[in-house]
Every structure is written in C-alpha cells, then in structure tokens.
C-alpha cells in the first residue's frame, strides 16, 4: 500500500537579489549550452522535419493486393466507426466469388478527419492504414477530399514511411499462433484473410 502525506508548501522562500543573479546565471548557462552543445529545440521546417514515431497517425492509405486492386472490400466498418463521419464509400461487385465486393468510391475528407486512427482499428481486412505523412497542404477544400486513387498512391509513403497500422503482435491467445504459422508455411500468407478457392 502506498503512503500519501499532506504537506504544506514552504512560503518562506526568502526572495532577494541573489536569486535574481542565480536566475540570470541559469539563463546564461542555457544560452551557452544551446549554442555550443545541444542545439536549439526548434526545427528548421520545412528543410528539417520533426521526426515522428512508427505509430504516427498521418494521412491514410489503402493497401493493395498483388494485382494492384485495393484490398478493401467496402465493408463500411471504417465509415461506421469514424467519429467525424469523414469517410464516404460506395460499393460494387467484384467478379471473384471469394472477394465479391470492392469500393467503387472511397473518399476521405482530410479536413473533417481528426486522425484518431479508429478506421485502422475497425478494419477487418487490413485494408486501410496511416502513413507518417503529416504535410497537409491544399488551396481549396475540394482538394483535401482525397479519393481512392490518391489513397493508393505510394509516393508519399516512400517519402514519409508507414505509420499507424495493425500490429503483428496483436495476438492474444497462443492457440491461434499455430494456425497463423501454418498459414505462413503452407500458403505463404502473413496476417490477413487467406485467398479462397
């Protein structure tokens, strides 16, 4: 059990001239440290960019299958969970009977989006993830409603790197690992729904 005590703060701090000098010395030391040692905390944007983590929630991207079509099957999980209601999807028929559905339209209004990452959490097909792209620039509102094609582009992904996505470590019950191993071994599949016959 932890111990908590109630303690009165000490008001007898004896302010005076010396503390002012101590403060000035503190600032001087900071100045020297910044100039000669650790550098400024600021970043010279846009030539330098502040680093983001591997889980950064930047602009979204749609993952693709080997044939270049989107993995997305327009299940609407992301559009349903989005707290900002910024995803618009229309679905159509795919001839492959094991896939059946795909998005004919998939649009995200990047200005409404709050970059919470729930769409990535909600996707059951690993079809949407977020990159580390955070340079959101546009001159009109319409420009910042991105469509399926833009979401499948890879130029920005190469520049910024992948960000928030499902983790391969998201495995809670060991009994399922054996099944995943088998999938990997016999079908060459890593997390994701297996191709159907």
């Amino acid at each position, binding site marked *: 059990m932890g111990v908590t005590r109630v303690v009165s703060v000490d008001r007898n701090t004896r302010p005076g001239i010396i503390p002012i000098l101590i403060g000035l010395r503190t600032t001087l030391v900071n100045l020297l440290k910044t100039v000669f040692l650790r550098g400024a905390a600021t970043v010279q944007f846009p030539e330098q960019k502040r680093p983001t983590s591997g889980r950064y929630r930047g602009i979204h991207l749609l993952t693709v299958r080997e044939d270049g079509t989107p993995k997305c*099957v*327009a299940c609407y999980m992301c559009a*349903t969970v989005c707290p900002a209601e910024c995803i618009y999807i229309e679905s159509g028929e795919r001839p492959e009977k094991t896939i*059946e*559905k795909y998005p004919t339209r998939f649009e995200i209004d990047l200005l409404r989006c709050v970059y919470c990452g729930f769409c990535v959490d909600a996707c059951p*097909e690993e079809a949407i993830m977020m990159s580390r792209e955070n340079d959101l620039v546009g001159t009109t509102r319409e420009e910042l409603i991105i469509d399926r094609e833009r979401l499948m582009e890879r130029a920005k992904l190469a520049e910024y790197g992948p960000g928030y996505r499902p983790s391969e470590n998201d495995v809670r019950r060991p009994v399922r690992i054996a*099944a995943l191993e088998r999938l990997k071994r016999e079908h060459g599949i890593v997390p994701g*729904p297996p191709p159907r016959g």
Partner: protein
Amino acid sequence: MPKCTIDGKELEVAAGMTVIQAALQVGIHIPHFCWHPDLPVDGNCRMCLVEVEKMPKLQIACNTAVTDGMVVRTNSDKAVQAHRTTLEFLLVNHPIDCPVCDQAGECYLQDQYMDHGLHDSKVEVEEKVRKRKVVDLGAIMLDAERCVLCSRCIRFEREVTGTNSFEFVNRGDNTQIATFENRPIEHDYAGNLADVCPVGALLSHDFRFKMRVWFLSETESVCPGCSTGCNIFIDHRDAEAQRLRPRRNVEVNRSWMCDPGRTLYKEIAVTERLTGARVKREGGWDGITVAAALDEVAAKLRAAGPAAAFMASPQATNEDLFAFKALADSLGGPLDFRVGGPQRLLRERLDQVLQRKDRNPNTQGALDLGLARDGVDAILKRCASGEVKVLLLQGVELLRDPSHVDAIADVPFVAVMATHEGPELDRPDVVLPAAMWAEVDGTFTNFQRRVQRIRAAFPAPGDARPRWELAAELLRRCGGTLAAASARDVFARLAAAVPDYAGLDYRTLGSTGRALLLQGLAAAEARA
C-alpha cells in the same frame, strides 16, 4: 388456459401455445433460427433449447406446448451451455464473410453470438467446407456457405407460395440449399425469402451492396401498391428511402409483402418529382409559389361555385379525401373518384398470396367517406356539355385515359394535384405539387375495412405538400375552414363526421390499425 412460469415470470397463455411464443409475451427472447411465427415449426436448429422442470433433457421451446404448472428456465447454466454449443456447431463451417455480407446488422448469428455465444473458435479457416457462392436466383442471391440449414426458405416455398423451389441437396456437412438447376425464383414473393433467411445465405438482389443496415432509420407505414395494404417499414437514410420491408400484421399480411410492392420506394426520390407549382400562361408554363397557385385555383373555384367538379383519387389518404370532400361540399359541385372502376376490383385477388387487382391503397376509404357520389360518367358528360367550368383533380387517373381527356377538352380550367412529371400534365392549367405516401402522416383503409396509419419518414421535396393541406388551403380561400393543423387533427374531424369511424384516433389505431365492420359476402372475401 394453462399457467406457467418462465424465468420467474408467471403468465397464463392460450392452450396450445408453445414456450417460445409464451416467452415473447413477457419480453423474453429465446434464441432461435428455424422457428418463425408465420411458418410451420421444424425444430431442426436446436438453438431454442430450454430447461423445463421435471424433464431430464432440455426441450426445444418452439415445439413444446405450455402445460399447466410448467416451470421453464431459459438462462440456466445448462440452457446457456446448450445455446453456446449449438451456436458453435452452426459456425463450424460458416465463412468469414461479414465484410462482404449484406446481412450484417440484421444477422441472427451476429446478434446471438454476442448474447449467447462469446466462445473462442476451435476451427481453422481452411478446414471449413466450401460451397457455392454468389448464385443469382433472380430477385435474390444465394450463398450456400452462409446457410445454417434452418429450412425457413423451404417451408416458405412450401406453405406460402406453394412453389417448392428450395430443397436440401447432398448429405452430412456438405448439405446445401439449392433450387433445381439453380433456376431463379419466379414468383412475386422472392423478397420474403431474403427476409426469412436469418443469415446472409439469401439476400435481396435489389439491395445488394447498397447500404449497411445500421445506417438506416425505420418508419412504420403501409404499402400503397394495392388494396391489401400490407404493413411495411420504410428504411431510409438522409431523407431518402433505401428499401421497403414487411412489418408483421397477423390480420393483413403476416410477415410478407410482394416484390412489386417492394420496388415502390424507387418512385420517391426520382428527378421527375414535382417540387413546385406551375400555371399555364400564353407563352408556356410559369413556375409560381404554391400559395400563388392556390390563390389562382381558389379564385376560379369561387367564381364557378356549383359549376366546379371534383375528382378524388383512391391513392389519397383518408385525411386527403376528407379535406377534398369538405372543399367539394362547400362549393356544391359534383364529386366522385371511381375512374377505372377500382371499387369493382377492390376485393379481387390477383394471386393466392397477397396481391389484389385494385392497385390503389384507399378505394375502401374513399367509399367509406362518401366520395362515390355523383358518378364519373355523369361528371364527364357535364364536362363535355360545358356545364363544368372548373375541374379539380386530386390525382392524375383521369388524365391518363385519352377518352377522358377528350371529354374534358372544353373545361375552361383544370387543376391537378400531382407527384410526378408526365405527359398527362400537359392538359391541366395549374399543377400543384403533392407529397407522396412516404412523406405524410395519414391513414389508408384496406380491403378488409381496416384503417391503418402511415407515417412520414422524411419531408416532401421542394414545395410539395400533403394533399389534405392543399385542399384545406383552398377551402380557407373559399371561405370555409377545416379547423385542423395536422393530419391527426384532420382525422379527428373525420372520425367525428363519419359514423363508422367514430371513436378512432391515431393512438387507438396504433401500429396495426383497427378493422371496421364488414357485412356478409364482403366479409368472406376479406379474410386475408
């Protein structure tokens, strides 16, 4: 009347009632797949197992009649375990199709898994039995992998339509549902197959991939397709109807509706909808405000007096008809509605299931409210002879018959309340935009003389107004008053004025309506 206790709640039920039905009466929903209130019992899914005191084995609630003194527990440990195990077996070969399956959101497996399953899977996906997918059967799509073999579709085909299209083929865990040679379903009730299927094995082709059902709001209404008046739900999102589906009413349509009725939602949001009033001038049509159009029509009506004739429409609600008649009565001109003789077809069956030949929802209401008065032919004769100076039409029926259009060629002023553009609107001089059935509160009286409520699911487009409102506004401009600010008020006036409708109001009509007395032969014809 046996008495029983279910989960501690005591109740008395009619003799012969099964446990599953009795439980519903006290708000207990026993999980099930194959049982359906309007289909014969099959008892094959084994999901509704419950513990009955003094019986050593669990019993299926759907086929166990309540006996006096019976004590049932639907959530005892044994029953809970049975539900979970049954669900687990049903899911053994079930494909991981939720993302592409339209049933999500109204799927018995999903719902019952959360309430009665919550087990971990023991099956690897590549071990599942593969069956036929995406089989086009016309109005419905079949996916045999998703089928839980409940046989509801088989029983529907056998008992309701008598067409016996479905049967199980193969054996063991290769059992599949199939039609002979994958032939499509060819009757008018295929949509119900998608409704009865508890999973995504049978799905509506029309609704395929259109929208996820949890985005839809539902509004209770009545189908306007024919005089049967099947109870329905309008499923809509953002003021647009997405589909219609049946609402259970044991007296009228049970759990079914016909496919032609289902397609009626498509007529609502089309670009041909009339959204504004217009008046014919020298050079062509002028769009004007509804108020201005009503002023013009009222001026003509006032000038004409008894030389104004009125043709109501059996497509209109009772409220519309009542207001229209009040207007006609205030001016003293002739009134009728029977263009095409709908009253002759009112109770004639089109098939052995639901549809009737009268394709109007409210012929009976028009008869009840006294709109069959002066005779269509008589009115047309007076139009041709020049006696009628103003003709007000509540619907476009008259304008669709070329011989009728000829008969009214010399009427100086014709005004019509219409919902859609069309060539028939060339003739009238003023067109008033009317709201459709899905956009208004009101009542229809069906062939059984059952008064049923319809409710507005979303507002009418543009300036379109309910027909009763247009008539009330004309009445006001002609010096009368309907003394009603809402459809509910109009109905109250109606109930006060029409003896057979006395004592009815929206609250008592509720969700399933109220039947008025039918005499003799008509009563025999009226049995659903």
